């Protein structure tokens, strides 16, 4: 039994290391003063962060990412939340099929979707525009919103809404005073996931974005392909810190509402 538990600890530690170490390795390199992404780090500097800000290729990409991810979040959260509310209806015909359709964008390989979107958007005359990128990102962000809002709505006791109605609240009052506040944590995490999805999206962007819509992820992708510049590590640092901040914000919101 002792050997067993020792084996368990060693194994678990190894795998935790495997899962976490790569992320820990990247972070310090964001502060290297050298020109290569290698250890040992010659000295620490913010050189590559300034590169992100000052080099227009990077700064433009960051702005694009913020703009596109922000718009995607709005579109996906709005459509996804409405749909999750609609899916709640009792006796909805084809409800499981509709739900499956809403989740499929998560499943379909991005390259296939990208090929189709590019062909269609070219036909519409909207390819290589902000609109095409936002639409494409929204399509794959929507499942996350639907899942997380549906989850939150599923946690609401219908009797609470009935109670509100019996106390004299009209349907729209029930919605705004009871249903929506209670679903808010789900909406918020859906929005955060939508933002993160858009921020990290590369494949669809390759197909539907033009040179003017180059996002941070897209820029990282091509930099990784061409020359591994330490700007990558700085950009990764920005993304990791951004993600952690969003996660903390969510946690805080959930704490408050619980």
């Amino acid at each position, binding site marked *: 039994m002792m050997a067993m538990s020792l084996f368990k600890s060693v194994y678990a530690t190894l795998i935790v290391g495997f899962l*976490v170490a*790569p992320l820990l390795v990247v972070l310090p390199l964001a502060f290297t003063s050298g020109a290569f992404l*290698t250890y040992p780090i010659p000295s620490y500097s913010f050189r590559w962060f300034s590169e992100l800000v000052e080099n227009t290729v990077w700064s433009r990409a960051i702005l694009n990412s913020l703009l596109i991810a922000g718009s995607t979040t709005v579109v996906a959260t709005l459509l996804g939340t409405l749909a999750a509310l*609609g899916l709640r209806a009792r006796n909805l015909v084809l409800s499981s099929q509709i739900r499956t359709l809403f989740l499929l964008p998560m499943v379909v390989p991005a390259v296939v*979707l990208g090929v189709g*979107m590019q062909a269609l958007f070219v036909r519409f005359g909207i390819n290589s525009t902000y609109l095409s990128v936002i639409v494409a990102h929204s399509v794959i962000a929507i499942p996350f919103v639907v899942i997380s809002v549906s989850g939150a709505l599923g946690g609401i006791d219908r009797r609470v809404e009935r109670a509100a109605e019996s106390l004299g609240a009209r349907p729209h009052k029930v919605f705004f005073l009871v249903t929506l506040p209670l679903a808010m944590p789900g909406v918020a995490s859906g929005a955060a996931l939508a933002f993160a999805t858009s921020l*990290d999206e590369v494949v669809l962007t390759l197909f539907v974005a033009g040179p003017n819509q180059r996002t941070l992820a897209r820029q990282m*992708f091509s930099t990784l392909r061409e020359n591994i510049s330490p700007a990558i590590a700085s950009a990764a640092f920005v993304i*990791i810190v951004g*993600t952690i901040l969003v996660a903390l914000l969510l946690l805080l919101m959930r704490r408050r509402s619980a």
Partner: protein
Amino acid sequence: MIKAAPMRALLLLGPLLVFLGLFFVWPLVTVIAQSVSDPSVSRVLNRTAAAIDGWDGTGVPSAEVQAAFRADVVANTDDMAMGDVTRRLNATKSGFRSLMGKTVSAVKEDPDIDLARIDDRWTDTAYWQAIQDNASPYTDAFLLAALDLERDKSGNIAAMPEGTSANATILLRTLWTAGVVTFCCLVIGLPYAMIAASVQGWKRSVLLGAVLLPLWTSLLVRTAAWMIILQDNGIINQALMGLGVISQPLALIYNRFGVVLAMTHVLLPFMVLPIYSVLLTVPGNLMNAAASLGAHPVRAFLRVLLPLSFRGVVSGTLLVFMAAIGYYITPALLGGASDQMLSSVIAFYATGSANWSMAAALGLILLVLTLILYAVYNRLSRDPVEAR
């Protein structure tokens, strides 16, 4: 109120249904249509295509068909497109190249010329047959080519000559790589999930957090991290060389090893989480119960815990495999030329060589594979009793 409910549901669902119909379903339909469409002949020879449809395939088509053909030749102003048509027809019936060149200049001179007078090949049924065969705007040629198949001269499906196409190789490579990644995830993930489910408190939080953290972190960042670690002067090679184990850097990147390692890292959470959540529903004292009934721990594990976690294992395996076959970024960045998977090839056909139909045909195969796997996964996750 109560009667208005379906109406309201429709109003709520409507926007997303329309949105996904336009920007998700339609693109996929476009892919499917593209994969079977071959408009090059029917677009240029559209009158001929319409007229020759009724020809019974014996002798020579009627004067109207021939007139339509001449009209098409006269009307066409795009030499590139006509070249395309000629190439296509020549592939079906050799001799078309010289015949078409001759015919086009003759017809352009005299739009009413009798075709038989230009060349007596126009009295040969086989040439007209080639036009009729290629007149349809639909073709299975791309789908067949995606599997390294083609139609031979008599129209039967046959294997392409050795070395002319690598699509089947790539398809097999994709399945193989995805299989290896799935196997690695299973071997690493199953014990990990069992350990995570068996401990309590902070230990469990750490184990779960380690799985969730990569899931929350950008895929690109994780792939970049592996590139930094595995490169020739990355920390692994530096460490090994520093220790004197090796004198030349090991090739860890731009090969299959790098792809499998990074994909395993990226997809491991999808294996661990389903198994973990199934194990959580297993009562904690079940192993004790088995032990009290006289089962040796190993035996109890094999007979009790493993069967109970089976559902999670199946879900995880399907999820990982499904995600792996469609992967693009990781193989594209960490793989060499001979490690490219289906997605990379599709992207190459679409953006690199602008062969849309070929990209769509390969895409359709990938799409169908993925959807089948997803349907199985969906079935299993929805019907817990049947899956047991």
